[in-house]
């Protein structure tokens, strides 16, 4: 586990030193949040929309943005870079469990997930969204977002290891969008009466 943590620290340094990969992870979900709220907030006014429980439409959209942020991790592409640049072999030539190489990246994604989710929720608070379940709800929300970041990064890392191709790994990430569109992310699903 020590080796995984050491490699996780390296992956965090890598993320910090590559703002061009990190910043879109924050800005793209924010962009979707603003666009979706701008498009649909008037259709669902908070005072007459039951599923909003008195909150603005932004509160309903925030979880989608959190999931989007958590699914935009760059771990898999950095892994492909390691493979193509030969550093992956350097790591494989050390006496560490092979799983540590992947675990290190997942640890870093979890940390980044916590930071990004916290930033998004705090921005939401600034714009009037409140977390009705309080601090515990906030922690749970951030924790679940980070957990999703780990799960989705794990999927992406497996594609990267299998294909060793940046193009294939990038394409695999697009699976997030059909998954998103399968969810009731614009309006709460209503069961039609039978």
């Amino acid at each position, binding site marked *: 586990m020590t*080796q995984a943590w*050491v490699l996780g620290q*390296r992956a965090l340094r*890598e993320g910090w030193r*590559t703002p061009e990969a990190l910043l879109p992870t924050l800005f793209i979900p924010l962009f979707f949040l603003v666009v979706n709220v701008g498009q649909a907030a008037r259709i669902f006014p908070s005072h007459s929309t039951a599923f909003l429980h008195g909150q603005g439409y932004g509160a309903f959209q925030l979880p989608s943005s959190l999931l989007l942020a958590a699914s935009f991790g760059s771990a898999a592409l950095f892994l492909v870079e390691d493979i193509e640049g030969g550093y992956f*072999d*350097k790591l494989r*030539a*050390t*006496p560490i469990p092979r799983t540590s190489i992947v675990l290190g990246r997942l640890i870093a994604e979890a940390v980044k997930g916590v930071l990004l989710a916290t930033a998004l929720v705090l921005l939401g608070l600034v714009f009037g969204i409140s977390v009705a379940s309080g601090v515990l709800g906030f922690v749970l929300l951030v924790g679940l977002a980070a957990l999703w970041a780990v799960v989705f990064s794990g999927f992406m890392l497996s594609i990267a290891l299998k294909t060793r191709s940046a193009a294939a790994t990038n394409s695999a990430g697009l699976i997030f969008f059909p998954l998103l569109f399968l969810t009731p992310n614009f309006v709460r699903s209503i069961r039609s009466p039978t």
Partner: protein
Amino acid sequence: MIYPITESTAAVQADGLVKHYTGKEVIEAVRGVDLRIEAGEVFGFLGPNGAGKSTTVRMLTTLLSITSGTAFVAGVDVARDPDGARRRMGVALQEAGLDPRQTGRELLVLQGRLFGMSPSAASARAGELLALVELEDAADRRIKGYSGGMKRRLDLASALVHEPDVLFLDEPTTGLDPASRLTVWDELRRINGRGTTIFLTTQYLEEADQLCDRIAIIDDGLIVRQGTPAQLKAELRERRGLASDPSLDEVFLDATGRRRVAGDVQEVSR
């Protein structure tokens, strides 16, 4: 497990090493390589492109599975105890495999930590190695700004973090300018002078002639010549009845069935 190197233990020993790649058709990349390299030697492994050099090195360094045969590094079976073997060998492969976003010092400290050193021990070792390869001034700069020669020297240093018995170098000077090449040669002599066995592949015959105690030439997955450079030259001189020793280039061309035509080396069908 630590295995003591005794007089009877070769630094590297391979017997009947075979590698087949299976796909639409079976490719026999290495077809039965036997090697014995004694502790303290600088051993050169030469061959044309695609002859099986890198495949052999990758099998010996645990990066590639062995189809059949056995390989021991510092007395450790690389197939049965790969982690034990990795602790006894340092590896620097073709095209220095480094992380461009880290600094030279961070890379060496990380490497030390992966070999089980404490943070302070890894940091101290990184400092020693940076001095050894004369990169102290660039130690805290990111690697992406290093020149090709600096990257090679850092790659060498990272392979030495855990004080290995055997150092594997796959084309350590390919792509370097002559001055950087000479610097790397000096580093290798210094490292070998400290008792580290060096196994290197190279495409530069002059490099093999200058650095290596013994060489082996591999072609089409089989070793076709093996001995000291002087022995190989003397053998060709006697066989061809030459007045003086041929160059190692001529030994190489003779061994691999290639011939020089208007400055290029061309293959001769056999």
